[in-house]
C-alpha cells in the first residue's frame, strides 16, 4: 500500500512498531500515526458519527475533526490521525454496536431519519411521565462517544512550568517564522510554539516548499528564537497568559506581545454525501501522500475555492493519484454537487456530470483561525467578498500575522450548500447536523445563530465549530433570508482545542498544614483529622472523655498552634483596634488581655480571639484557626483605607502555641517558666514574657476550656522541644495531651462559642448573647450602625445554653420547633460527664430564651424537650479560671 520511498517523507522505514486494532496486529513505521498506519493497512472507515452512526473516514489528518476518534489504551476520544503508536498500544473502535464496518446502530441513518429530526427529543417521550426514565436511559446509552474506564486510578505524571517571553509567537508556519525572525532581529526575546514535530505549517506537506521552510526555520533559530515543537496554545487569557500543552508539561507563558500566526482552518464544502469516507480536506490528502507516502486514492476530484486545491491536485498527481477533474470555484461555482458510495465515495456528480472516483478533495473557504484573538476579545467581522470571518480591532499586546489576519488572497465564495434532496448534506460533522436540520430549526423560530446553534447543537461537538461554524452561519443566514453579518457569530471560547483534565490538574498535591508538634501527636497515638487546611489531633485515645477528666482533675496539654496570630504595632495601634472591634482596646493596660469578636459592616460576627497589649504601641492578636488569613487581609484592607500609623505582621506560621491547663497547671509552670506564676504576680488575663524550657515565650493566662490555664506562644522551631519538656516535667501530675474533641466538650461546658459553629453569617454580638462586648459609646467601629439597629428593633433570637432532660442526643443542626415549624437550631451538643447531662447551645426565639424555659427540638425525627440554661454549666462564676 505504501508508495516507494519518497523524498521528505516523515516515516523511517527502518524502524517499526506493532500495535493492535480490535485485537489484530498492525505494523507501523516510526513517524506514522495510528491513523496513517491503519490507512496503510487498508482501513478506510475510522469512526461512526454521533447521531446517525454514518461511516466516517480520515478527513483532516490534523487532529481537528471528530472522524477518527478511537479508544487508545483505554482512553476514549483519541484522534488517531495525530497520535503516534507505541509498541503494544491497544486501539479500539468506539460508539459502535458490533464493529466499525457493521454497526447495528447505523439503522438510525437509514430508517430513523423521519422520526429523529432536529430536536426530536423535545417533542417525544413526554407522556406518560413515568416512562421518561426508561427512555432517558436508552438515550444516554446511545449518546456519548468513547467509554471511560471506571477502574483507572493512576495518573500520568504532569508538571506545570511558568515561563516568560517578550514575544510569544503561536504557530510555526511561514508567517509565524517570519514574525518571530523580525521580532528577534529587533532585539526582543522571542519564543515560537508549534503543534507539530517541526515548524513549517501546512507547507511541510508541500514538497516544493518544504526545504524553503526548513531553511527559514534554521535562520529563525539562529537569530535566537526559541522554537518549541509539539506545543499547543490552550488559549489566550487576561494579561497575555498563554498556557501551552506540551504533552506531559503545561507551560504557562506570560508574554508582553502575543503574535497569533495560527493560519487558517480548512473548511468543508456542504453537499450531499460530503461526509463519506474518501471525501477529504486538502491537508488530509496531502499529509497522507507527503508525510506517510500513502496514496489517498486512485482517482480524485478536487473542488476548490482557491489555489490550495490546485496545489493539492499537483501534489496528489505526484503521488500517483489520477486527477479526474479540478472544479475551481473562481471559474465556475457549481450549483449541484452529490457524492455517492456506500462504504466510501464511489462517484461525484457535479452539475449533472458524473465522475467515478474514490477520493474527493474539498477545499472550502480558508477561514482565518482567529480563536486565540477572540479569547482576547478581538472583534470578528464577516467579509462577504470572500465569504469568511476576519478578526478586527485587536487588543493591545496582541498581534496577528499571515493568514490568521485574513490575508488569504481572493478565494471564491462557495454557496452555503450545493443542492438539496439527495441524501444528507452535513454541516456539523461532530453532531450530524444537516442543512435540513437548519431549515427546520429556522422554520420553528430558532432564527438567530445563537438559537439555531443551541437547538441543532451544531458547533457544540468536539471540534467546537472549527469545521462547521462558518458553514452553520452561512446556512442559517440563507434560511433566514438575511446575511452572515446580520446573523452574527457564536462566541469562540477557550480552550482552543480540547485539553485533558490531567494536564490541567498537574501533580496531585496534598495541601495540608501541620504544626511543628505534629509528629509528637502521631507518636502519642493521636487520631488526626482535617480542620480546614490543618491536620489536627481529634483525640489521643478512643475515649475523649478521659482527656476531659484529665483537664478537670489534674493537667492537660493541647497544641493550639493553628490559632491565627497577628502583631499590630504603631502609635495608632489601639485606635486601630477600637475601630475594628465592637469593644475597646485603647484602654487595655499593658500586660493585660481582652477577648474580642470581629464584626463586618453589617454587624455580623466573622471571627473572634484574644488581644494582648504587649506595649503602649503593640498588640498581639489571636484569631480562629481558619480565620487567620482572612482577618489579616481584613486588617490590611482597613489599614490601607484609614491611613493609620500601624504596621501589621501575620506571625501565624512562625509562632507555635500550647495551652497548659488544669488544676495543676501552675505547678507545671513553676517548673518550666522562669518567671513568677503566683496568682498575684500572674493573674487571670495577664500576658507575660519569659522563657519556657529555655525558649523565649509569651504566656497568656486565659481559659477557653474553663480551668486554670496558660497559653504559651513561642517560636515554631522549638515546638517539639517545648512539648517534650512539658510532658517530662508534667509527668508527676500525669500530664495528658488532649485533642480537639475533648476541647470542644470542655468549652461547651463553659458555653464559650466557636465562631462558624455557634454563629452563622447572620449572627450579631447581641443575639449571640455577648452584649458586654459591644461598646456603642465608642465613636465608631465597623458594624456599629448595624448593631445599633439591632438594639433598636429588639432582639429576635438568642444564643443560649440548654440541656436535654431525657438524655437523648440531638444532632448538631437539629431544629428548634415551634408550632411544627423551624424556629431555631442546635449549634453545638455533647454529653458532659462533668455535668452528667446532654448539654448544648442553641439559637432560640427570644421569647423562649429565658432561664429554665422549655422548648422543643427534633431528635431522631421526633420532638423532645430541652431546657434553657443561661449560665455556663461548669464553674459559672469563673472561680477556677481565677484560682
Amino acid at each position, binding site marked *: 500500500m505504501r508508495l516507494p520511498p519518497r523524498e521528505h517523507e516523515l516515516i523511517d522505514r527502518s524502524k517499526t512498531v506493532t500495535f493492535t486494532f480490535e485485537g489484530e496486529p498492525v505494523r507501523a513505521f516510526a513517524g506514522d500515526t495510528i491513523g496513517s498506519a491503519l490507512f496503510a493497512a487498508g482501513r478506510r472507515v475510522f469512526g461512526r458519527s*454521533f447521531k446517525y452512526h454514518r461511516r466516517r473516514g480520515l478527513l483532516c489528518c490534523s487532529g481537528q475533526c471528530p472522524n477518527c476518534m478511537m479508544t487508545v489504551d483505554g*482512553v*476514549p*476520544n483519541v484522534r488517531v490521525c495525530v497520535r503516534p503508536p507505541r509498541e503494544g498500544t491497544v486501539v479500539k473502535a468506539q460508539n459502535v454496536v458490533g464493529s466499525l464496518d457493521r454497526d447495528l446502530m447505523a439503522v438510525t441513518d437509514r430508517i430513523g431519519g423521519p422520526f429523529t*429530526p432536529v430536536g426530536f427529543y*423535545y417533542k417525544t417521550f*413526554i407522556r406518560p*411521565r413515568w416512562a421518561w426514565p426508561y427512555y*432517558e436511559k436508552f*438515550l*444516554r*446509552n446511545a*449518546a456519548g*462517544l*468513547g467509554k*471511560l*474506564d*471506571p477502574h*483507572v*486510578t493512576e*495518573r*500520568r505524571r504532569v508538571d506545570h512550568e511558568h515561563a516568560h517571553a517578550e514575544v510569544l509567537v503561536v504557530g510555526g508556519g511561514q508567517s509565524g517564522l517570519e514574525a518571530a525572525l523580525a521580532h528577534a532581529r529587533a532585539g526582543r526575546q522571542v519564543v515560537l510554539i508549534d503543534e507539530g514535530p517541526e515548524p513549517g505549517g501546512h507547507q511541510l506537506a508541500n514538497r516544493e516548499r518544504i526545504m524553503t521552510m526548513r531553511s527559514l526555520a534554521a535562520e529563525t533559530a539562529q537569530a535566537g528564537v526559541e522554537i518549541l515543537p509539539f506545543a499547543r496554545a*490552550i488559549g489566550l*487569557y487576561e494579561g497575555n497568559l498563554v498556557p501551552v500543552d506540551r504533552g506531559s508539561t503545561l507551560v504557562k507563558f506570560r508574554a508582553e506581545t502575543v503574535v497569533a500566526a495560527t493560519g487558517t482552518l480548512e473548511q468543508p464544502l456542504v453537499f450531499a454525501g460530503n461526509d463519506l469516507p474518501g471525501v477529504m480536506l486538502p491537508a488530509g490528502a496531502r499529509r497522507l501522500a507527503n508525510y506517510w507516502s500513502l496514496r489517498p486514492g486512485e482517482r480524485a476530484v478536487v473542488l476548490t475555492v482557491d489555489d490550495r486545491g490546485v496545489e493539492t491536485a499537483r501534489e496528489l498527481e505526484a503521488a500517483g493519484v489520477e486527477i479526474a477533474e479540478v472544479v475551481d470555484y473562481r471559474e465556475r461555482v457549481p450549483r449541484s454537487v452529490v457524492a455517492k458510495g456506500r462504504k466510501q465515495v464511489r462517484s461525484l456528480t457535479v452539475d449533472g456530470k458524473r465522475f467515478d472516483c474514490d477520493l474527493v478533495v474539498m477545499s472550502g473557504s480558508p477561514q482565518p483561525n482567529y480563536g486565540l484573538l477572540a*479569547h482576547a476579545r478581538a472583534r470578528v467581522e464577516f467579509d462577504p467578498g470572500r465569504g469568511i470571518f476576519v478578526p478586527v480591532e485587536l487588543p493591545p499586546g496582541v498581534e496577528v500575522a499571515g493568514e490568521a489576519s485574513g490575508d488569504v488572497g481572493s478565494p471564491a465564495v462557495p454557496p452555503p450548500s450545493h443542492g438539496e434532496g439527495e441524501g444528507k448534506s452535513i454541516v456539523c460533522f461532530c453532531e450530524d447536523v444537516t442543512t435540513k436540520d437548519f431549515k*427546520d430549526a429556522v422554520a*420553528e*423560530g430558532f432564527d438567530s445563530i*445563537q*438559537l439555531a446553534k*443551541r*437547538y441543532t447543537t451544531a458547533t457544540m461537538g*468536539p471540534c*467546537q465549530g472549527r469545521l462547521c461554524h462558518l458553514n452553520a452561519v452561512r446556512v442559517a443566514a440563507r434560511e433566514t433570508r438575511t446575511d452572515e453579518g446580520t446573523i452574527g457569530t457564536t462566541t469562540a471560547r*477557550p*480552550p482552543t482545542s480540547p*485539553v485533558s*483534565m*490531567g494536564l*490541567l*490538574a*498537574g501533580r*496531585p*498535591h*496534598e495541601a495540608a498544614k501541620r504544626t511543628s508538634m505534629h509528629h509528637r501527636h502521631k507518636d502519642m497515638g493521636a487520631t488526626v*483529622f*482535617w*480542620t*480546614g487546611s490543618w491536620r489536627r489531633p481529634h483525640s489521643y485515645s478512643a475515649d475523649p472523655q478521659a482527656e476531659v477528666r484529665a483537664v478537670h482533675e489534674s493537667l492537660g496539654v493541647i497544641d493550639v498552634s493553628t490559632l491565627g496570630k497577628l502583631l499590630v504595632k504603631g502609635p495608632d495601634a489601639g485606635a486601630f483596634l477600637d475601630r475594628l472591634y465592637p469593644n475597646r482596646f485603647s484602654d487595655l493596660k499593658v500586660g493585660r488581655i481582652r477577648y474580642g469578636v470581629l464584626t463586618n459592616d*453589617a454587624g455580623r460576627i466573622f471571627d473572634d480571639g484574644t488581644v494582648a497589649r504587649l506595649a503602649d504601641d503593640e498588640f498581639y492578636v489571636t484569631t480562629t484557626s481558619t480565620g487567620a488569613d482572612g482577618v489579616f487581609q481584613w486588617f490590611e484592607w482597613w489599614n490601607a483605607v484609614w491611613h493609620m500609623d500601624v504596621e501589621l505582621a501575620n506571625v501565624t506560621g512562625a509562632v507555635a502555641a500550647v495551652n497548659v491547663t488544669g488544676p495543676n497547671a501552675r505547678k507545671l509552670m513553676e517548673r518550666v517558666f522562669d518567671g513568677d506564676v503566683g496568682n498575684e504576680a500572674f493573674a487571670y488575663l495577664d500576658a507575660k514574657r519569659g522563657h519556657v524550657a529555655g525558649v523565649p515565650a509569651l504566656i497568656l493566662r486565659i481559659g477557653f476550656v474553663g480551668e486554670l490555664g496558660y497559653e504559651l506562644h513561642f517560636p515554631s522551631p522549638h515546638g517539639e522541644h517545648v512539648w517534650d519538656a512539658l510532658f517530662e516535667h508534667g509527668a508527676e501530675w500525669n500530664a495528658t495531651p488532649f485533642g480537639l474533641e475533648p476541647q470542644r466538650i470542655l468549652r461547651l461546658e463553659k458555653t464559650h462559642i466557636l465562631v*462558624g459553629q455557634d454563629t*452563622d453569617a447572620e449572627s450579631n454580638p447581641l443575639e449571640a448573647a455577648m452584649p458586654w462586648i459591644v461598646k456603642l459609646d465608642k465613636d465608631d467601629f465597623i458594624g456599629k450602625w448595624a448593631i445599633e*439597629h439591632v438594639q433598636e*428593633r429588639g432582639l429576635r433570637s438568642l444564643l443560649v445554653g440548654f440541656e436535654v432532660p431525657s438524655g437523648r442526643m440531638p*444532632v448538631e443542626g437539629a*431544629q428548634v*420547633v415551634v408550632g411544627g415549624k*423551624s424556629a431555631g437550631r442546635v449549634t453545638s451538643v455533647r454529653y458532659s460527664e462533668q455535668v452528667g447531662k446532654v448539654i448544648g447551645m442553641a439559637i432560640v426565639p427570644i421569647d423562649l430564651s429565658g432561664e429554665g424555659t422549655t422548648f422543643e427540638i*427534633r431528635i431522631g*425525627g421526633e420532638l423532645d424537650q430541652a431546657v434553657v440554661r443561661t449560665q455556663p454549666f461548669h464553674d459559672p462564676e469563673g472561680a477556677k479560671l481565677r484560682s
Partner: protein
Amino acid sequence: MRDIFFKKKMWRRHELKPRYDVVIIGGGAHGLATAYYLAKNHGITNVCVLEKSYIGAGGSGRNTTIIRSNYRTPEGAEFYRDSVKLYEHLAQDLDFNLMFSQHGHLTLAHSDRGMVVSAERAEVNQLLGIDSRVVGRDEVMEICPQIHLDGAFPVYGALYHPPGGVIRHDAVVWGYARGADRGGAEIHQGIEVTGIDVSNGRATGVQTSRGPVAAGTVIACTAGWSTQLAAMAGVKLPIWTTILQACVTEPVKPFLDVIIVSGQLHIYISQTDRGEFLMGSGVEPYPTFSFTSTFGFIEELSKHMLDLFPQLASTRILRQWTGLCDMTPDFSPVMGLTEVDGFVVDCGWGTYGFKATPIVGTTLAELVATGTTPRLIEPFKLERFYTDTLVSEAAAASVTH
C-alpha cells in the same frame, strides 16, 4: 409526537405596541415563565417580554441545570420544594420534553464541620417534607461507586437529596417561550430597555431601543445588570455582580448518574444526557461585569475534580464559559414590590435562579394579578434589608449548586 412531523413556529415575531398591561424586562426563563403564568393562571395576556439579545442568552443558557430543594433556611427550602414539584410536571404542562432527570444529588462533606452543616440542612428539609438526609461513606459509595473517597480531602459523608436532578436548560426557556406565545404574550428579541418612566412614584412605562412603551406594571427579570436597571426606576438594590464559570468535556458513554457537589473543594459535576461532563465552581470573589473566562478556573477545577474522580484524567475539557451572578448579602433573591408602584423586581438570583423558574413565574404572576405578595415569596422582599430580616443561605452557600 405529532410535532416532529409538522413544523410550527415556536413563537412569533410582532410589531412593538405602544402599551402593554405588563412589560417584562428580560427574556430569560424567569421572564418567560412569568409571562406564561400570567396568561395561564390569571388570563392576563396583554404582556410583552423585552429581551436585548436572544431568549435564554443570559443565566438561563449558561447555568449548569441543577434542580434541587435541599436549602438551608426554612424559607428557601420551602420555596424550592414547590419549585421542584412544578418542575416535575412541567414537561406535561408545557407539552415539551425538558428532559428532567432526577438521579439524585450528593453534597459531600470533607470534615466533621461539613457533616454538621449537612445535618442542619437535612433537619430543615425533613421538617418541610423534603427528601433529604445525611449519608455516611458506605452509602456514598453505594450511590456513586465511581467516587474516590480518600483523596487529598477525604470524604466523611454527604447530604443526599434523591429528587435532585438536571434538566435541559434551553428547553425550559423554549418551552415557556412557546407557552407564553400561545397564551398571547409577545416576545421581542433584540430590544434593549434604556430607561424606566416613573411619575409620581409610579412606573408608567419603559424607554427602549425601539422607542417608548407604556406599561401598567414593569417587572425586572434580569441578571447581571439588575442594579443598573433598578436604578433607572430610582430603586437601589443591595446587589453586587460577579461571574460564575462552568465548563464541559467531550462526551463519553454514561459514567456518572448522580450529581456530585463539594463545597469544600468548590466543585460540582454532572453528566448530561449527551454524555458530556458539566462542571463548575463557586462564584469569583471579585465584582465584575466582564464575561472573561479564566485559566485558573479550569486548572483548579481539574485539580480538585481528579481528587474525587481520577478516572477523568484523560477526559478533555471542550469549552469554558462565564455567566453574571447578582449576589445579595444573604445569598437569597430579591422578589416583589418596590417603593416605586408598578415596578416589581425579580433579581439577585446569585447562582440559584434557574432552579426557581416555575415558582418564580407562578408567584410573580400572582403578585401582579392580585397586587398582594404571595406567602412563599414574602421573605424575599426588598424591604428585608431595611428591617434586618435576612434569609441567610450564606452559611451553606460556598458552592450552592
